[in-house]
């Protein structure tokens, strides 16, 4: 495990090599380095993971070097491996590798091939730092690093200003959350004198009582960071626009990994959230509201990637809901399955998009079932998982767990449960709609080009995973397998359930399944669903959040900036200078050159001096 440092180091090295030698090594070289570095990282992860599991250690730290040491405040560049980070690392490297391979096909025609892979490698490196960080500052390093790469990759096709705008929006909106997170770090430094995660989590119960204002504030601020990164309410607006990037980017960053960083952060600092009930409840509420809002928006999108984007927001909402009700491992479970099936869906969508020569409008697709059968089946598997078709899909198991625990856990309740099953219903509806629009009906655009093997193989692998990953964790009612939650047990406490019974669990599953199937049926029968146009537009634009932010923040700022471009403070000094010049002109008038005027000056002076002296002499 001591060479675990290779896990983040390889992608970083890959990025560096690609930046420096992009011109010399050709496309093959770029592909080799780009995929190879992540591949090696994946291998190392698997080996290190196996070692870790065999070693019986609960956690393992690998100090690399001392980063900062000021007074009593010490921060090391230290990697930290435990079950949680291992789960994330695995998903990142494994899915990341697949997506890299896929990209060699997807991006093959792009002149900036090398830049793409450099950014992707950099991203993987940063993401790995995020999840392997031993302290919050290093986590923050990764956190911002992935933000940067997200920015670079969303704006990858920089020639279109709209892409640049989307990229900046993503960066800036997440930065708002990051600012909150930074403040949380300051608070932690102040109160615990450390940013080391294990330290903080150990000290927290001794420093604060549950519900203490400080810890609640910290938790809320961390939540601020999490909602920014994970595109939850109220900072969700950037993710749909982020679809401007190449599709593999959407798959890797905006579906599988980066956007779940918020989930990771909250899971990582679960002790703090447990101690701050108000904050944890807010996590659940944010998740619940987001999953519904985003689901509704997903239903009316016309762009296939935007459907998936809203779907991602909605699914992460599920994860937040799970975190909020204390179902920590359920959230991680959903993260893993979601990473597989959402990556699959994005990559599948990418295959469709490439096949149709960069057409993303679903209403211009259709009938692809016949012309792209391979993609169709893969997409079907992904969609089934997303819609949580019972028993055979990973999505079913992970989502079901959340739905059940939303109601059954100690912090959960009926309200959460209702929202969760409603979400399942909506998910099924928009997924079906997407499938129908894209693969059924009449063919509207001709297929140009079929995806090659390098694109298809990753899809097959992901399809398999999307199906099998669900069996890591099976509910009580269906075999009761708890591989993942057992594995995570040392890091994340098990969920505490209240008023739970097998009957209720059956009931919950039954309702969810029914609603899911109902959703599919309804859409199957009545597409297109007649919505009033206004409602449709409103939903399509993401409930007007963008417009509101634009009106409330962006426009006033831009206006203020524009009005005060010349810096009003400078007027003060310009004014002073003008006054001085005015005095100059006034005084100059006295220097008329006329002799009598000068004499007058002297006489006036004499009169004043004499009168002052005499006045003074007689008054004092």
């Amino acid at each position, binding site marked *: 495990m001591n060479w675990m440092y290779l896990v983040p180091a390889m992608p970083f090295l890959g990025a560096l090599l690609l930046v420096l030698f992009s011109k010399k090594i050709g496309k093959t070289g770029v592909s080799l380095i780009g995929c190879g570095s992540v591949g090696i990282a994946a291998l190392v992860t698997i080996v290190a993971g196996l070692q870790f599991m065999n070693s019986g250690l609960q956690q393992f730290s690998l100090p690399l070097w001392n980063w900062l040491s000021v007074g009593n405040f010490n921060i090391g560049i230290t990697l930290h491996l435990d079950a949680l980070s291992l789960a994330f690392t695995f998903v990142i490297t494994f899915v990341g590798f697949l997506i890299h391979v896929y990209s060699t096909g997807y991006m093959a025609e792009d002149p900036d091939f090398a830049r793409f892979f450099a950014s992707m490698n950099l991203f993987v490196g940063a993401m790995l730092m995020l999840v392997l960080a031993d302290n919050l500052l290093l986590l923050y390093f990764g956190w911002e690093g992935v933000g940067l790469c997200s920015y670079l990759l969303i704006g990858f096709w920089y020639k279109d200003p709209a892409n640049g705008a989307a990229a900046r929006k993503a960066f800036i909106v997440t930065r708002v959350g990051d600012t909150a997170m930074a403040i949380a770090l300051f608070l932690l430094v102040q109160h615990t004198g450390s940013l080391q995660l294990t330290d903080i989590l150990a000290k927290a119960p001794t420093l604060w009582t549950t519900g203490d204002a400080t810890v609640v504030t910290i938790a809320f601020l961390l939540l601020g960071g999490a909602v920014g990164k994970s595109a939850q309410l109220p900072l969700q607006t950037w993710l749909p626009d982020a679809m401007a990037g190449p599709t593999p980017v959407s798959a890797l960053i905006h579906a599988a990994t980066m956007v779940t960083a918020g989930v990771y952060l909250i899971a990582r600092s679960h002790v703090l959230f447990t101690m701050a009930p108000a904050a944890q409840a807010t996590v659940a509420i944010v998740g619940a509201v987001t999953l519904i809002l985003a689901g509704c928006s997903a239903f009316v999108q016309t762009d296939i990637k935007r459907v998936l984007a809203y779907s991602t927001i909605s699914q992460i909402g599920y994860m937040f809901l799970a975190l909020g009700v204390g179902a920590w491992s359920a959230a991680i479970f959903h993260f893993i399955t979601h990473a597989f099936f959402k990556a699959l869906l994005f990559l599948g969508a990418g295959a469709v998009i490439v096949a149709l020569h960069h057409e993303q409008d679903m209403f211009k697709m259709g009938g692809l079932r016949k012309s792209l059968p391979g993609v169709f089946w893969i997409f079907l598997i992904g969609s089934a998982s997303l819609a949580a078709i019972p028993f055979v899909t990973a999505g079913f198991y992970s989502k079901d767990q959340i739905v059940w625990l939303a109601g059954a856990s100690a912090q959960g309740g009926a309200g959460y449960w209702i929202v969760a099953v409603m979400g399942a219903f909506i998910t099924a509806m928009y997924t079906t709609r997407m499938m129908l629009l894209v693969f059924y009906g009449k063919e509207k655009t001709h297929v140009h080009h079929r995806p090659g093997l390098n694109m298809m193989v990753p899809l097959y692998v992901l399809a398999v995973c999307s199906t099998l990953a669900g069996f890591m964790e099976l509910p009580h009612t269906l075999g009761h397998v708890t591989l993942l939650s057992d594995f995570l047990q040392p890091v994340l406490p098990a969920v505490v359930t209240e008023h739970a019974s097998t009957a209720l669990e059956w009931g919950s599953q039954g309702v969810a399944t029914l609603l899911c199937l109902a959703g599919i049926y309804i859409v199957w029968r009545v597409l297109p669903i007649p919505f009033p146009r206004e409602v449709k537009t409103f939903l399509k634009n993401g409930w007007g959040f963008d417009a509101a932010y634009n009106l409330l923040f962006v426009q006033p700022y831009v206006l203020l900036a524009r009005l005060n471009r010349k810096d009003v403070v400078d007027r003060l000094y310009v004014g002073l200078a003008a006054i001085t010049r005015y005095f100059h002109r006034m005084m*100059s008038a006295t*220097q*008329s*050159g*006329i*002799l*009598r005027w000068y*004499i*007058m000056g002297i*006489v006036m002076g004499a009169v004043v001096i004499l009168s002052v002296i005499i006045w003074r002499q007689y008054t004092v």
Partner: protein
Amino acid sequence: MITSTTAGLVLAGILFTMGLVSMLIRRNLIFMLVSVEVMLNAAGLAFIVAASRWGQPEGQVMFMFILAMAAAEVSVGLALILQLYHQLKTLDSDEASKMNG
């Protein structure tokens, strides 16, 4: 009570002021020169009054110097005025204001 010294000084003061006022209201350079001579002599008178109060010769010595100096000044002044007249064709002091600002 007005002593002779005070009276003399007041006289000198009046002379001085008259010179001053006439310097202010006159524009003719010659008259201005004359006015300043009046002022100088007023000062000289004051010295004499003072000297007589103390019975000292110094004040009178001073008056001699003032006379000499005034003479020198007038001679230089007249020469300058003459020259200026050649150039400006006038003795109006207000005309001699080419330099200003």
